[in-house]
Each structure stands twice: as structure tokens, then as C-alpha cells.
């Protein structure tokens, strides 16, 4: 008995001694790299794969461009105020007629691989992307090269761009968008749409692509320490996919994410988040099949439908305050191009009913659905993509239209199906949601294709405003366009969604929504200037790890002392 007790206590003491000896040793063998890692996410979305971040292979939507913009710089770039600062160009000026733009390039800039950047690269880029419409970012009109007549390098650091015609938003839509690519890499590439080697992501940007994973849908960038605007405030930038952004933020799995207002409300004080909001330039609108549906082709019917919809009520039920009700002139009220003096359609059921009665739909059937002159009920199919917001809007529109005797059958589909059916003209009504872009050139001029509404007066104004260089004059023309839109109701803007972003106060703060958007109008908090001029608040990862190590050690020591004491007592007990 005594012997075995003693041996047990001896064994325990031995174990203890070894623990004390080995635990700290194993702990200190952890790496002690001094990394400032920032993990971001594009919010809760079905995909986080935005394509390989090179100017010719990114997925042609806003996030795809942003992922590319970390590696590649344009000539100029928007600041928070929407004013432009020079990136690769130090300064620029235009000729009096606005046709000739001279860019004085920054000297001493190098590509990620050490090669010097010169005017040749700019000329090469502009020529290279000019007629490659088959490549997706170009085909989906990310780069407006149609306005460019010629690009010339007058010396190593001066580029002159001549335009075909006067183009008012040249800086916003062209100079600040087209990423400059290295000539020495791309001139030998055979199939640019499939070129995704490591070299393909070499640019002049603040970050160097380290890893892009299609399956994981993740991106990893390291800072470009030699960046010409200054060293980035973080060492590593990571983008990951998250299935629930709020939970990922709370657990610290990610440091920053774009959110909806509902998600923002799920965060509280203890989460220590900096929340910013901005104009989303994202519209939810009711789209009519104007060309093929004879009933909806009637402007009176569309106006009556507008009167029957309470847009601000729809907003409060679907976004719960995370947006604003639609404006009949289509331009969101926070835009500098907004014209408040257009026909307003205040919610008025009686007026809507009256208008439909007058338009010849006064008879109703037993269900209270109006009949047209041939006795067919006024019933439409409402197409929508089956995300939460669109589905809720569709249900509400159905309820509202029922009150004025218009029947709606709901037809949900996934985004691609809806896009396909709408493009084919195979629908009556559709709930459509997309970014509006920030410049009238893209926001309004696409109306004939995006609504099916053709109006020669409108198109004449559209052409004119594009080539009007005088801002005030251009604003007047855009105002007139909005008046026309509001009068004719080619589409009903139901509401505009705001964008929200939350970032952990322990990491990077200073995010902002760029006025006018990034890259020609992407409303995002990921303006790369944040990572240059923002602030890093966290301790670097190294200190945090040491802290935890220390606590581990102290626990180990405490434990050991306790066990030692026990063993001692046991031995004493055994001796007795």
C-alpha cells in the first residue's frame, strides 16, 4: 500500500516537473512574426468569388473591379469628397475644347516586379484593351474606350489622350477607371482572358496578390512597402467568404464587412464596431414590358400603378429604414444630379382607380379584377428574383395592386433566370434591382435598353448632356431628362437601398463611402486609399499571441504548484 502510494506520488511529481520544463518551451516555439492582418468580407452573399484580380479577368461587377484595384492603379482616383487625386498621374489638364487631355505621370514608380513604370505602359494599356470586346470586363463596358481617339507618349512621363468627341465625364468614367497594365508582361500574352499566372496580377498598386483561391473564394494580398503614396497601414489584406457576416464579425473571424441595416442592428456596444453608412446608389424598381404589353404600354396605366404604390411604406417594411423611397425622376435624392421639381406620385388609391376607370377598365369581374375592352381580366405576371427583399417587395406590390383591381401572379426565379427572361422580353412586370451608377451618362442614358421606353426627345437630351462640358448647363439638361422620366413613368423606382459597413475598432478605422463611388460609380467602402491614409488601431498580432502565451504559462505554473502541493502531501501521507 505504502509503496504504491509513494510511487504514484513520485510519478505525479515527475510528470509535474516535466510539465514545468516543457510547457514554456513549446509555447515559446510559436512564431513571432509582427503582422498586421486585416480580414474583410463582401457581406453575406451567395458568392465571394469575383474572379482573378487582373484588369482583363475580374468578374464584371463592382466587387471584381475593387479586388483588381488593390493591385492596379488608374491614372487618377477619387478621394472621399469625390474629388480626384493623382495616382499614376501627378497632374493633368485639358485643352479648351475638352478634346485633348495631357497627363503628367509620376516619376520613380515601379511595378511590383521592380521594372520602372513609364508613359509607354499607359499607351500600351489603352491600345491593348481597345478592341477586345470579347473579354468580359471590356465587353460589359467597364472601360469606355469608344471616346478615345488616340493615345500618345510625348516623353517618358507625359501622355496625351485625344478624344473622338467632347465627353463630360471623361475623368470620372475613363481616367479614374482604366487600370494601367505593365507592357513588359502583357505584350507577350496570347490569350489575355485566360492569363492568370502570378505575373498577371503585377501592377503598381498598394497590394501585391499573394493568393487567390476559386474554391475557397478567398483573396490574400500583402502590402507593397514601396507604394508611392506611402506604405499601407496593414501588412496583409484578406478577403473571405462568410455565411453569416454578423456572427463572423462577433467572433472576430472577420474584421470588417458590408452589411444591411437589419444586420447592423444585430451588433451592439460590446462588439466594439465602427459602423458607417452611405448612399447605396442601388435601386429596386418595377419594370414594365413596354414594347410587348399593350396594356402596360399605356402611360396612364403606368401612372395609375404609380399612384397605387406607397413607396415609402414598401421601404419601411422591406428595408426597415435602411433606404429611402423612390423618386419619380429616377435619380436618387442624395445625388448631386437630383432634380426635385418633377411630377410626384403621392399614394392615392382613389386617383389611381379614377384613372383606370377613365382609361376604359371600369368593368370588373366577380373577383374585383378589372376587365379590358375584350373582357379579359387585367392580370399580370410579376417576375422577381427570389432573394428576401425582392420577394417581399413582390408580395407588397401584389397587395397594393389588388386594391385597384389589378391581379398579379407571382413568379420567382433565380437572378440569372430573371435576367434571361427580361432580356428575352418574356415578362409583364418585374422587380429589378441593380446599382444605378453615379454619373448621368450611365445612370440615365441607358433608359431605352433598361426600360424599353423610347423617346426621341429624351435621347436627344441624353446625347447633348454627354458632350456638354459646362457643369451647370449639363445639370439643366439632366434635370429636363428627369422631368421626362417622371412624366412618362417608363419604370417605377420603388426605393434605394443604403449601404452599411461595420469594422472592428481594434483594426482599421477610417473607412468612408466615396462621394460618387469608386471606379466609375461602385458604392463601396473599399476605396484603397483607406489602407494608405486610414489608421491601424490594433496591436500587431505578435503582442496578442505573447499575451495569450503568458496566460497559458501562468495557468501552467499555478496548476503545477497545486499538483506539487498535492504530491507533497501524498508523499508525507505515505511516509506516515
Amino acid at each position, binding site marked *: 500500500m505504502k509503496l504504491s502510494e509513494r510511487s504514484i506520488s513520485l510519478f505525479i511529481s515527475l510528470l509535474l516537473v516535466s510539465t514545468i520544463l516543457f510547457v514554456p518551451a513549446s509555447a515559446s516555439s510559436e512564431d513571432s512574426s509582427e503582422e498586421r492582418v486585416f480580414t474583410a468580407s463582401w457581406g453575406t452573399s451567395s458568392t465571394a468569388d469575383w474572379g482573378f484580380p487582373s484588369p482583363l479577368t475580374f468578374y464584371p461587377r463592382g466587387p471584381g473591379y475593387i479586388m483588381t484595384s488593390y493591385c492596379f492603379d488608374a491614372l487618377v482616383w477619387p478621394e472621399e469628397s469625390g474629388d480626384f487625386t493623382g495616382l499614376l498621374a501627378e497632374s493633368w489638364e485639358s485643352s479648351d475644347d475638352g478634346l485633348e487631355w495631357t497627363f503628367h505621370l509620376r516619376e520613380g514608380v515601379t511595378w511590383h516586379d521592380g521594372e520602372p513604370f513609364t508613359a509607354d505602359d499607359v499607351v500600351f494599356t489603352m491600345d491593348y484593351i481597345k478592341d477586345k470586346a470579347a473579354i468580359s470586363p471590356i465587353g460589359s463596358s467597364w472601360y469606355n474606350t469608344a471616346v478615345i481617339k488616340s493615345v500618345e507618349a510625348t516623353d517618358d512621363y507625359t501622355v496625351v489622350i485625344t478624344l473622338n468627341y467632347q465627353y463630360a465625364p471623361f475623368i470620372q468614367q475613363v481616367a479614374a477607371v482604366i487600370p494601367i497594365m505593365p507592357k513588359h508582361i502583357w505584350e507577350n500574352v496570347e490569350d489575355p482572358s485566360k492569363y492568370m499566372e502570378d505575373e498577371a496580377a503585377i501592377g503598381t498598386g498598394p497590394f501585391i496578390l499573394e493568393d487567390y483561391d476559386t474554391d475557397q473564394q478567398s483573396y490574400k494580398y500583402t502590402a507593397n512597402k514601396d507604394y508611392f503614396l506611402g506604405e499601407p497601414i496593414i501588412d496583409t489584406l484578406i478577403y473571405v467568404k462568410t455565411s453569416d457576416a454578423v456572427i463572423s464579425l462577433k467572433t472576430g473571424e472577420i474584421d470588417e464587412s458590408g452589411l444591411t441595416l437589419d444586420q447592423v442592428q444585430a451588433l451592439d456596444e460590446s462588439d466594439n464596431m465602427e459602423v458607417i453608412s452611405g448612399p447605396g446608389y442601388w435601386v429596386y424598381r418595377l419594370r414594365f414590358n413596354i414594347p410587348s404589353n399593350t396594356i402596360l404600354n399605356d402611360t396612364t396605366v403606368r401612372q395609375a400603378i404609380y399612384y397605387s404604390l406607397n413607396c415609402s411604406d414598401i421601404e419601411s417594411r422591406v428595408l*426597415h429604414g435602411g433606404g429611402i423611397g423612390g423618386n419619380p425622376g429616377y435619380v436618387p435624392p442624395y445625388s448631386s444630379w437630383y432634380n426635385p421639381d418633377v411630377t410626384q406620385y403621392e399614394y392615392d388609391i382613389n386617383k389611381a382607380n379614377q384613372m383606370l376607370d377613365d382609361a376604359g377598365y371600369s368593368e370588373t369581374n366577380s373577383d374585383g379584377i378589372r376587365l379590358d375592352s375584350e373582357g379579359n381580366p387585367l392580370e399580370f405576371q410579376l417576375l422577381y428574383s427570389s432573394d428576401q427583399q425582392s420577394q417581399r417587395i413582390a408580395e407588397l406590390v401584389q397587395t397594393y395592386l389588388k386594391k385597384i383591381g389589378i391581379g398579379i401572379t407571382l413568379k420567382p426565379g433565380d437572378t440569372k433566370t430573371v435576367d434571361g427572361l427580361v432580356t428575352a422580353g418574356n415578362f409583364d412586370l418585374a422587380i429589378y434591382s441593380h446599382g444605378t451608377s453615379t454619373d448621368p451618362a450611365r445612370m440615365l442614358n441607358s433608359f431605352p435598353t433598361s426600360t424599353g421606353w423610347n423617346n426621341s426627345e429624351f435621347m436627344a437630351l441624353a446625347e447633348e448632356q454627354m458632350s456638354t462640358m459646362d457643369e451647370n448647363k449639363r445639370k439643366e439638361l439632366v434635370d429636363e431628362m428627369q422631368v421626362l422620366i417622371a412624366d412618362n413613368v417608363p419604370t417605377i423606382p420603388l426605393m434605394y437601398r443604403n449601404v452599411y459597413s461595420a469594422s472592428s475598432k481594434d483594426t482599421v478605422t477610417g473607412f468612408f463611402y466615396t462621394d460618387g463611388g469608386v471606379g466609375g460609380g461602385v458604392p463601396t467602402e473599399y476605396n484603397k486609399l483607406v489602407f494608405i491614409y486610414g489608421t491601424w488601431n490594433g496591436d500587431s498580432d505578435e503582442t496578442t499571441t505573447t499575451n495569450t502565451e503568458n496566460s497559458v504559462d501562468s495557468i501552467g505554473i499555478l496548476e503545477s504548484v497545486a499538483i506539487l502541493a498535492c504530491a507533497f502531501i501524498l508523499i508525507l501521507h505515505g511516509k506516515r
Partner: protein
Amino acid sequence: MHEKTLFQRLKSPKGITGLAILCFFIFIAVAAPFITSYSPADVSSSPLLEPGSEHPLGTDDVGKDIFSNLVYGSRTSLMVALLVSFGVLIIGTLAGVFSGYTGGNLDRVMMRGVDIFLMIPDLPLILILAAYLSPSLWNIIFILILMGWPVGARITRAQTKTLRVSGHVDFARVSGAGNWYVIKKHIIPDLYPIMITTVVMQSIRAILSESGLAFLGLGDPSYPSWGTMIKYAISYPLVFFTDAWMWWLMPAGLCITLLVLSFVLVGQALEGDK
């Protein structure tokens, strides 16, 4: 004879519990307009209200009364269960009895057809069809019957084959009874237990499939459904950070569970489980 034993089996505690729950849901479905004053599609209330005297279970994210959606949702579930189970029962029994009783090449051909149906995985096909056809409740019922009848047919056929060569059927035939008479008097009555099990199993399947499809957004948006309620509740980001899950998410889940449970209990009782 047969009915009596079935009723006796139902008298077990399990059967009574199951029947009670089932009757409760049937009562709610029938009396829905008297139980709640709101229509399930009514969106006049403010969104995201907490439970109160106006709304016993509060309102959801667009201002629909959750309680009335729950009550009217029982109509949808029960209707789908009823139509699908009886659809499968009628088609399956007819096909099974016909195939089993006729035998021969016809039987072989029909059973190969059934095999093909049985081989197709249920859920993926339902998903594709539901997405392809427009999402109406009738389409869902149609698809569920289409995918369900071969199971019923298989079981019925096997039983019919055994019955066809059993003593009393042979005796009836020898005594000069016609085919129709034999089927009606001697085969169908012996199939009652199988038929009742079919109804129960198919009801469970129908309820779960309908809720599942609705949860995936492939249901009929014009009918209130428990699956849709769960879908919306889960996609509301705050549902687990506030108490909203208690009156929004849980009741719908509970209703599905209880209704399925009632069918399971009835089914077990009928099979003679104590």
C-alpha cells in the same frame, strides 16, 4: 371485420394521442377565420411587433400577423397532405392491384416503369421541377403524387400477388366469381392496412416536402406556409439576437413537428405498436 381491428388498434394511447393532435390541427384549419381576425396576407400592421393583445405572436418583417399565418398555414399543410396521400393511394392501389392481379408481361412492363420512377432521386427532381414549373401549390401536389405513386404501387402489387394465389381467392374463382368481384370483395379489403399505412406515410412525406420546398423559396408565395415562415424568420438577421425566434421561428417549427408526429403516432398505432 378489418375495420374493427383497425379501430381497436387506434384505441392504444399512441393512437389516441396522434388522433387528438391531428383533430386539433384539422379544427384549427377549418375554423381559421373564427380564430384570427387578420388575413394571412394582410400587411397593414407595423412590421416586427412583439407579441401583444393585437397580435398574439407579433408581426413579421413586413407586418403580417404571425399567428394568422400559423393558423392558415395548417390549411395549406393539411390540404397538401390530404390531396397527395389520396392521389398516391388511388393511383398506386389501382396500378398495383391491376399489375399484380393480371401478372405476366403486362406486370413486368409496369413494374419496370415503376422501377424507373423509384430509381429517380426524389428531392433533386422535385427541386428541378418546382423551379422549372411556376411555383403553384397545385404543381407541388402534382409532383409529389407523381413521385409517390410507384411506392404505393409496389407494395400493393406484392400483396395482391400473394392474395391472388391464396386459398379463399382461389376458392372464390373456382366457384365462378368474376375478376372484378374477386378484386372488390377479397383483395381490396385485405389491402386496407397497407392502404392506411400508405396514407399516413404519404401525408408525412407531403407535409415535409411542402415545408421544405417553401423553405427553399420554391413554394407557392400566395399560400401561407410554415416553411415560408421559417425561411423568412431565419433570414432576418436579428432573429437569434433578440427574442423574436421564440414567437416567429419556433411556433412554425413546432407546428410542423407536431403535425408530423401525429401522423407517425397514428401510423404506429395502426401497425399494432403499443
